[in-house]
C-alpha cells in the first residue's frame, strides 16, 4: 500500500470517528468509547509485548488499580475533579508498575509470563477476599468525574458524547506518544532488547533499567485506560484486575499484530466486535472466541495485521532473532 493511500485511509477513518457521535446511535457511541479505551489499554501492552519482548499476562492489574483509585477517591455525593483523580489514578498505576516491575523484570521469558500473572492475581485476591472497596461485589462511582474551571464546566463525563470525545482525544494522544517514544533513543533501546538483549548488555546498556521504565510507562498508560473505563461504567469490581481481562488484552495485541502502531487498534476493534457478534448468537460465545483465537495462533502468526497489504519499507517488527551466544533460550530451558 502506498503511503498516500495509507494517509487517505487514516484521514477518512479519523473523520468517521470524529463525526460518529453526531449521527450514531447512543448504544454505539458507548460501544465505540469502550473500544477506544481498549485500544489505549492494548497499545500500552503492545509497548511491552510487541516492542520490548516482555510477555505480560497480568496487565489488567494496572488497569484495575486505576479504576479502584478513582472509585475510592470519588466522594459519594459529589463528582470528583477530573484532573486530580486522573493524576492520582495514573500515578497509582505507575507506582504499582514500579513495584511489581522491579520484581518481575528481574526474570525473563516464561518466568515473566508466570510472575506477571501471579502478581496480578495477588491483587485480585486482595480486593476479592477482603472488605476493601466492596469485596467481590465491587464498588460504585455514583458521580462521574467532571472538569471544572472557575465555575465553568466544559466536560462532564456523565455525558456520553463528552466522554466519547475525551476518550478519542486520549487514544490519539496515546498513539502519538508511543510513536514519538519509539523513535527516541529510549525506543531504540527497547526494540534492541527485544531482538537481542544479551548483546545490548554487552554494548553497555543496563537493560534492567530500560525494561523497568518501559514497564512503568506501560502501566501508567494502562492506568489511563482503567480510569476511563471506570468512569464510563461507574462501577469497579475485582474482575477489572482479573486474568480474563489480562488475557483478553493480550489477545487483542497478538490478534492485531504485535509491534505495529495500528495492531492494537485493529485487535481491539476486531476482538470486541467479534465478541459482540458471538454474544448475540449464543450464551456459550466464548467457545467461538476460543476457536478464533486457536485458529489465529495456528494460521495467522502475525495477527490480522499480517492480512493487510504490506507497505513499502516494511514497518512491522521482525521476529526476535534466534540463537546467538547466551540467548534467552538457554536460560529458559534448563535440564529437568
Amino acid at each position, binding site marked *: 500500500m502506498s503511503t498516500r493511500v495509507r494517509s487517505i485511509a487514516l484521514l477518512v477513518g479519523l473523520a468517521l470517528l470524529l463525526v460518529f457521535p453526531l449521527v450514531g446511535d447512543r448504544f454505539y457511541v458507548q460501544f465505540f468509547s469502550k473500544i477506544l479505551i481498549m485500544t489505549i489499554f492494548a497499545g500500552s501492552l503492545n509497548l511491552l509485548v510487541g516492542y520490548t519482548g516482555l510477555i505480560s499476562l497480568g496487565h489488567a492489574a494496572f488497569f484495575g488499580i486505576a479504576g479502584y483509585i478513582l472509585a475510592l477517591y470519588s466522594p459519594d455525593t459529589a463528582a470528583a475533579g477530573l484532573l486530580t483523580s486522573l493524576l492520582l489514578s495514573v500515578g497509582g498505576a505507575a507506582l504499582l508498575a514500579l513495584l511489581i516491575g522491579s520484581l518481575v523484570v528481574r526474570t525473563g521469558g516464561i518466568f515473566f509470563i508466570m510472575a506477571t500473572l501471579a502478581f496480578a492475581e495477588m491483587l485480585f485476591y486482595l480486593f476479592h477476599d477482603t472488605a476493601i472497596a466492596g469485596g467481590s461485589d465491587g464498588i460504585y462511582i455514583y458521580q462521574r468525574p467532571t472538569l471544572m474551571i472557575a465555575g465553568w464546566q466544559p466536560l462532564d463525563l456523565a455525558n456520553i458524547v463528552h466522554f466519547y470525545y475525551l476518550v478519542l482525544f486520549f487514544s490519539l494522544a496515546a498513539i502519538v506518544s508511543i510513536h*514519538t*517514544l519509539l*523513535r*527516541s*533513543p*529510549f*525506543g*531504540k*533501546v527497547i526494540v*534492541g532488547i527485544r*531482538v*537481542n538483549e*544479551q*548483546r*545490548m*548488555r*554487552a*554494548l*553497555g*546498556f*543496563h*537493560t534492567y*533499567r*530500560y525494561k523497568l*521504565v518501559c514497564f512503568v510507562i506501560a502501566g501508567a498508560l494502562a492506568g489511563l485506560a482503567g480510569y476511563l473505563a471506570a468512569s464510563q461504567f461507574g462501577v469497579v469490581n475485582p474482575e477489572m484486575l482479573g486474568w480474563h481481562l489480562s488475557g483478553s488484552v493480550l489477545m487483542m495485541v497478538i490478534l492485531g499484530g504485535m509491534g505495529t502502531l495500528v495492531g492494537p487498534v485493529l485487535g481491539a476493534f476486531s476482538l470486541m466486535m467479534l465478541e459482540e457478534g458471538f454474544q448475540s448468537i449464543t450464551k456459550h460465545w466464548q467457545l467461538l472466541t476460543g476457536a478464533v483465537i486457536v485458529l489465529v495462533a495456528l494460521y495467522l502468526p502475525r495477527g490480522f495485521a499480517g492480512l493487510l497489504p504490506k507497505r513499502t519499507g516494511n514497518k512491522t*517488527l*521482525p*521476529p526476535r*532473532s534466534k*540463537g*546467538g*551466544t*547466551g540467548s534467552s533460550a538457554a536460560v529458559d530451558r534448563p535440564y529437568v
Partner: protein
Amino acid sequence: MSEVVLETRDLSRNFEGLVAVDGVSLSCRMSEVHAVIGPNGAGKSTLINLLSGDLRPSAGSVFLRGEDVTGLSSPRISRLGVGRSYQRTNVFLPFTVFENCRLAAQSRLDTSMRFFRQALHYRAVSDAAMRAIEQVGLAQQTDKPVEALSHGEQRQVEIAMTLATNPSLLLLDEPLAGMGAEESVQIVELLRTLASDHAILLVEHDMDAVFALANTLTVMVNGAILESGEPQAVRSNRLVQVAYLGEHDFGSNRF
C-alpha cells in the same frame, strides 16, 4: 613502557566441576596486541567471557587500569571502555548495518533515558556509527539489513559495532573466522592501525594474522597457560609444538 590496561590474576571458572579456565594470569598494555591461541576447548572464549563480564569468575581477579573489576556485569565493564566481539556473530540481524552501529554508538550517551527527540537527530551518535562502518569497509552496505549480508560481511559488522562503542581495550574473539581472504587482509590492516592507540586481546586461529599482529603470544591448553611471551620465542618452544601440533594439525603454513 606503556600503561597496563588489562591484568588478570589466577583467573578461573568452573562449570559444574569442569574447569574451563584454570588460574590464568596475563596482562595487556596500551598499544599492544596480545594474542591468545590454543586448540578448541582450551578455554579461550570462556576467558573472553570472563573479561567482558558475560560470565562471573569462580576465582581470581580482573583489573582494568589497576582497578579491580572482578565480577562486574557486562554493561558496567563495557562502560569502562572495553569492547568485545563474538566468535559466533552476535548482532541485531533484522536491523540495518547502520542501526546496528548506531545502537552501539548510542550506548556511549551518558544515558538513553531520552524519550522525546528522535534518535536519528543525535548527530554525534550517527557520525560515530558511520566512522565505524567506514573503518571496516562496509560503507556500501550501510542501509542493508544485516541478515541480507554474506557471512563475512556480518563478521565485519560485528567488529564495526565493537569499534562504534569507542573502546580503549578490544577483546576480539576470532574476528577473522568465516571471512574471505580479501576481507581478512583488510581487517588485519585495520587491527594494525587500531593497535597504535588501543590495547587488543586477540583470540585467533589464523596463525599468519597472529604472527603479523601480536607483540605477545599466550598459548592456552586445557584452560591453563602453557607458555607466554615473545611470539618467536613461544613458537620455538618444543612443549608448545608438541601440545598444539600434536593435537591439531593446522597445516604447515599456519603454525
